[in-house]
């Protein structure tokens, strides 16, 4: 296929990677947008979800928020924010749109994670005399960790995807390689850009899957105990 060959040539050309329109610069912008937006949405959504989940209130809010989030077209919100007075403040309209779309998955998953913790365990912890914050920190949060991370991962992937759309609205990021390719009617550049974006999104997904595994407090604790117990043969089992 001719397209494959031309795409490869495009990617292999060093000039396409450097400079203001180069891949490295666009990747840099993309990473910056993703990191800032993800941090802000986690800072906003996680505490709210943990408190609501601990108290067992606001379940309807969490579910409805994620449903509404799905119905609102990201692209339209991005454009609306750009045309609003906020549009003058550089990349802030983009960041705000990204944060708005990342909050529902983080909030919903963290809330559900906190709620799905075995009630018996919470009762047992309380029976041992733990205070509310202690229950949250030592029982609920460690057990809810996998689901919380799933939410953060969804949010991260979603932010990467949405940041691509910023390019459609004249913003920075890897999507610019694609939109520039469209303007130049250069199919090779469009495909190259799309490949770069897809690979980047999958990489982010992969990194978060790994992070969730490595950081899981329950799994880590289990691993440590298993390591200690393993050498001593257990006779009565």
């Amino acid at each position, binding site marked *: 296929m001719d397209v494959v060959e031309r795409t490869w040539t495009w990617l292999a050309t060093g000039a396409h990677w450097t400079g203001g329109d180069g891949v490295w610069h666009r990747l840099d912008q993309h990473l910056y947008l993703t990191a800032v937006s993800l941090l802000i949405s986690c800072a906003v959504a996680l505490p709210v979800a943990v408190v609501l989940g601990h108290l067992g209130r606001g379940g309807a809010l969490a579910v409805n928020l994620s*449903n509404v989030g799905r119905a*609102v077209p990201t692209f339209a919100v991005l454009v609306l924010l750009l045309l609003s007075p906020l549009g003058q403040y550089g990349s802030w309209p983009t960041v705000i749109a990204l944060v708005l779309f990342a909050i529902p998955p983080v909030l*919903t998953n963290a809330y559900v994670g906190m709620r799905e913790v075995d009630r018996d365990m919470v009762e047992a912890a309380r029976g041992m005399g733990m205070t509310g914050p202690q229950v949250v920190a030592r029982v609920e949060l460690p057990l809810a960790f996998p689901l919380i991370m799933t939410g953060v991962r969804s949010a991260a992937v979603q932010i990467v995807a949405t940041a691509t759309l910023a390019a*459609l609205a004249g913003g920075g990021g890897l999507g610019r390689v694609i939109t520039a390719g469209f303007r130049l009617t250069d199919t090779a550049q469009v495909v190259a850009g799309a*490949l770069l974006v897809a690979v980047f999104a999958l990489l982010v997904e992969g990194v978060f899957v790994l992070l969730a595994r490595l950081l899981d407090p329950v799994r880590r604790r289990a691993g440590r105990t298993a390591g200690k117990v393993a050498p001593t043969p257990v006779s009565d089992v």
Partner: protein
Amino acid sequence: MAEQSCLVDNDWICGEYLSTRGQELVDATLQHIGITLASVAIGLLVAFPLALLARARRGVRGPVLGLTTVFYAIPSLAMFSLLVPVLGLSVSVVVTGLVLYSLTILVRNILAGLAAVPEEAREAARGMGYGPVRLLFGVELPLALPALMAGLRIATVSTVSLTTIGAIIGYGGLGNLVLSGLRSYFKAQVLTASVLCVLLAVVADVVLLLVQRLLTPWTRTRRRRAPRAGAAKTPAGQAVA
């Protein structure tokens, strides 16, 4: 002082825009509905046999779920662009992309729905002499309908909002108006098209909810005890932009 036209003022809300460009809005809305309907219908047609295959063979299950998850992680702008060299600049690019996205949700929900069918129901049907086909369509599918419909609703709503990205190749329905509105800094057009898009998603969701209630009259009496188990188990809600 003469009334200034809201088109000249470039207001966000403009009645004159609605009256003078009504046809444009209707055309875009119809294109939007057409693309969404086609994508969801094809998605369902592909997802159903895939889910059955994944259920029947463990070896198929992993790759099918893995592949659809990978599709889901690809940003829509990239997805549509990657399909252009294969399918050319046509509406089929947008529809194919949207079908690939809907598969993730649909396959998972159909599988979850079928898995939730109680074994006793299956046994009873087999005891009554039901063959595999009649068992599937007469017993399993109706019982899996709530989960299936929950998936269909999520897929439809996110397809409505994702269709807008088709604007990059000119087949985005209301998204076309958003993009051209951005380029000409035409606020009324952007806001009207965006609101219509959200309305479309809400209407589609309500219609599907009504269809679900009509198709599953038996769930209403049981609802209090088992609140939509299928819907709650759907993987983390996310719409890839």
